[in-house]
């Protein structure tokens, strides 16, 4: 018997946890991606500012 065999309820349980994992992974991935994008933008702006002020 598979550890994920819960009889007739298996599809409902597996679907619940699969959707939960997918949605939370997508949210986490989006937050990490957004954080990196903002940090890169800020670093680019800082670099441009220091270049401008050194001229």
């Amino acid at each position, binding site marked *: 018997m598979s550890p994920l065999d819960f009889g007739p309820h298996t599809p409902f*349980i597996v*679907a*619940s946890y699969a959707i939960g994992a997918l949605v939370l992974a997508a949210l986490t991935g989006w*937050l990490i991606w957004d*954080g990196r994008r903002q940090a890169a933008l800020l670093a680019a702006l800082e670099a441009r*500012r220091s270049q401008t002020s050194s001229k």
Partner: protein
Amino acid sequence: MQNQSITQRLANPTWFMSFSARVLPWLSAAAGLTIAYALATGFMTPPDYQQGHSVKIMFLHVPSAWLAMMAYGLVAVSSFGLLVFRHPLADVSAKAAAPIGAVFTLLALVTGSLWGKPTWGTYWQWDARMTSVLILFFLYLGLIALRSSLEDEALASKLTAVLALVGVVILPVIKYSVEWWNTLHQPAGVMKGGVDPVFLRPLLISAIGFTLLFFALHMKAMRNEILRRRVKARQMVEVDTAARRERAGVAGASVS
């Protein structure tokens, strides 16, 4: 800095960025480990005498439903902090919490529906609990849409905060819907001894794990929002500097 209270220090975005950078990895690790342990023990529980194995959906559904409401509470408290105390991070907190709350509300609805089919024989019914949680989900979407529809960020923050405070009335409606109306959804039983200890222990550990995950996600979203505001402020300075230079250039040319 030494004499500042914790709330005063938390109000400082620079202090918050440094504090959250140190705390976030530990918070995320604690959330991951706690959820893994809760689900591992939850999946080893025996079938319920009435619901069979479908009771295992509870370890995801109940924490999601709790967090859907807690997140809205946080949005409302942060909105109050913005409107009354003008706390510098209150709006950042409210903006960061809304999409995360929407995600947990969606999870509560979807997992509730998937639990409802084997338990009640239907994925959905317009009963008071389910309908009020659906309204909460639309309220979250409304907050996100209202904020993104306005160009003026200060105005968007204030209007969103007012809507969030008006919408807080949904929380007692959700909480007491199973008592005020005759619903298909069972009454709250976790705090009233209605859940067998075999299921209660993994459920509470799961709730702690998902709450830690919520705070980790919220902290990360707040960090992103602070960075976004810094980017915007720098871009404004650049635009301003370029405009001043252009004006100076035009003035110089007209003098010569």
